[in-house]
């Protein structure tokens, strides 16, 4: 009877570990700063690239004719503040080279006979080539161009054209990244990136720190079981992960106006699953790593493909197949689909399973490895 009660998990012990972790976290200013700092810095870096409305984008002009109407249009572009006309070039080829080098964001080409066609109401076309590697940067400038034609020429050509008709046809040619990542993709994706980074790293460090300082031995000499130690140590990080997510969500809602169509409860459930997957990995890293430095290195080995191959940086369907295969093994890939689905498309629970099971499978494999190595380090 006595043995039975002894081997049961003890709430007091478990609570003791949780409290200890919180105290240590509070004392470790650098780590604490990192936990709060990483989401804020990443939000600032990635987030403001979205909402900021970049102006004064360098623009080159190819003028087949230097008519007054073409000049008027250019003046209007300049006045919109979105475009800085860096010069006029002779040929399409030269313009293309400027785009290639990244010297200009836009090349605007006025065709021959632009003015005559305009006066006759023939809707001349204006070719705009945009460097869309950063679709966010090009987006609002392009929408300005759309309105500009009618704004500039309607006063000069009164009653000439039926209202509502576009006076010029804008032929937009997006280069380099025709698919274009929508702005809303990034903030939800950021949630996954931040969680991957902090959850894996923090738990990885938490365990190896004990081993490196020799305190692990003391912990093991107490009646605390490995399960109590492991779970007790990760609880604070689950809480931190949820705080980070809430921080990002608040920013998404109030700063970046990201739509939230799906259920928040469902979202948090998915987040919890993802946090657990990352914590499992962190714990496993920490039982393999000999010291904190190694745990850190392992984290970055995992973090880099997660960022590059998950669909956060590049459109997932645009990657070569081998890269997609690697990406499909990473929990972040599936988490991004889940979060974007819930937030932007309003997906409900019935649509989640195809993305949930790969995360569960990842967890099972990693946990298996972790428990195996954990036992070995005890003996």
């Amino acid at each position, binding site marked *: 009877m006595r043995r039975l009660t002894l081997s049961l998990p003890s709430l007091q012990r478990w*609570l*003791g570990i949780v409290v200890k972790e919180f105290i240590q976290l509070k*004392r470790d200013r650098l780590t604490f700063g990192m936990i709060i700092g990483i989401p804020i810095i990443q939000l600032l870096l990635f987030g403001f690239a979205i909402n900021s409305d970049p102006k004064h984008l360098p623009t080159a002009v190819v003028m087949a004719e230097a008519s007054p109407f073409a000049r008027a249009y250019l003046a209007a572009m300049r006045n919109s503040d979105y475009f800085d006309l860096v010069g006029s070039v002779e040929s399409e080829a030269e313009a293309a080279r400027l785009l290639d080098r990244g010297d200009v964001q836009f090349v605007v080409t006025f065709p021959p006979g632009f003015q005559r066609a305009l006066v006759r109401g023939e809707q001349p076309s204006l070719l705009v080539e945009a460097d869309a590697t950063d679709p966010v940067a090009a987006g609002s400038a392009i929408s300005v161009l759309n309105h500009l034609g009618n704004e500039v020429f309607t006063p000069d050509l009164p009653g000439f054209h039926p209202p509502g008709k576009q006076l010029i046809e804008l032929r937009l040619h997006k280069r380099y990244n025709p698919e274009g990542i929508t702005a809303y993709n990034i903030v939800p994706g950021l949630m996954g990136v931040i969680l991957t980074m902090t959850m894996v790293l923090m738990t990885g460090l938490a365990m190896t720190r004990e081993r490196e*300082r*020799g305190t692990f*031995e*003391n912990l093991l000499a107490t009646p605390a079981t490995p399960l109590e130690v492991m779970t007790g140590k990760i609880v604070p990080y689950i809480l931190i992960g949820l705080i980070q997510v809430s921080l990002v969500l608040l920013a998404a809602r109030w700063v970046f106006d990201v739509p939230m169509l799906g259920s928040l409860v469902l979202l948090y459930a998915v987040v919890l699953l993802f946090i657990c997957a990352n914590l499992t990995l962190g714990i496993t890293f920490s039982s393999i790593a000999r010291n904190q430095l190694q745990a850190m290195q392992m984290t970055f080995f995992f973090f880099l493909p997660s960022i590059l191959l998950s669909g956060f940086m590049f459109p997932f369907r645009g990657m070569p197949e081998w890269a997609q295969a690697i990406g499909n093994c990473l929990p972040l890939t599936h988490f991004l689909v889940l979060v974007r689905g819930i937030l932007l498309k309003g997906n409900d629970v019935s649509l989640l399973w195809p993305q949930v099971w790969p995360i569960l499978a990842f967890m099972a494999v990693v946990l298996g490895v972790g428990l195996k190595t954990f036992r070995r380090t005890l*003996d």
Partner: protein
Amino acid sequence: MELAIDVHGLNKHFGDKHVVRDLSLQVREGEIYGFLGPNGSGKTTSIRMLCGLLTPDSGSGRCLGYDVLTQSAEIKRQVGYMTQKFSLWDDLTIAENLDFVARMFGMRGRREAVDRALDDLGLAGRRNQLAGTLSGGWKQRLALAACLLHQPRLLLLDEPTAGVDPKARRDFWEEIHRLSASGITILVSTHYMDEAERCHRLAYLSYGNLLAAGTASEVIAAQQLATWELSGPDVTGLGEALRQLSGVEQVASFGARLHVSGADAALLEPTLERFCREHGLRLAQVDSTLEDVFIQLMRHRPDPLEAAS
């Protein structure tokens, strides 16, 4: 008398290294048992097996009446283990460390126990100081207080006085004897001969083998080592010459005197008498000390790693 520790034939391997070989140990309740041996001789591994931190590969035995192979959880509850290196949390305060340990042992009346321990330590005024900022001696006292908190029946101390000044060492041993008098069994590993002599009984471990066990005088007697003291003018320069003589196994300098030891007294005595006549030295047989005996034991059991290379 009841045995607090009674283990037979414990073995432990790390990879292909046989760290502890057929260890058998009997420690009586309430005694102070010294655990001696050179660095890397398996002392720490043996202690970890006794308190349930490591599972022996083979062997059997009981610690405080619990099976060392299957009941490590029960053993941990009643054993206080003080690690060789300070292993409390540097970034927790003194009080937080004690509180955490009390929680780990699921103590009732935790706060009272912590306050009492702080008062006993004389650290009540510094309870909010970070443990990492304490000096070596204070860290050691805190570590002892932490492993006494849950009132264990057995204390396992792994080189507790390494790096501690003589005054603190003496105080520490006074405390150990007080605890022993109150009925707690203590197993303590050490390198210091004066500490070994303060133990009720001791064991000598060398590279996984238990070579000698008993009281200090029993261990000395068992080795049948004869020792002579040589004194006289310029005696210190003669050490090398003495080592060449047959029957001489150890020569050690003590100021202006030399101690010469050997296992074969009948061979050694006439040799030394002749040597002293030639060099005009005084010769007297003295008792072999623990140190002489341990050096002798180490000589006959060289480090297997060194022997191989």
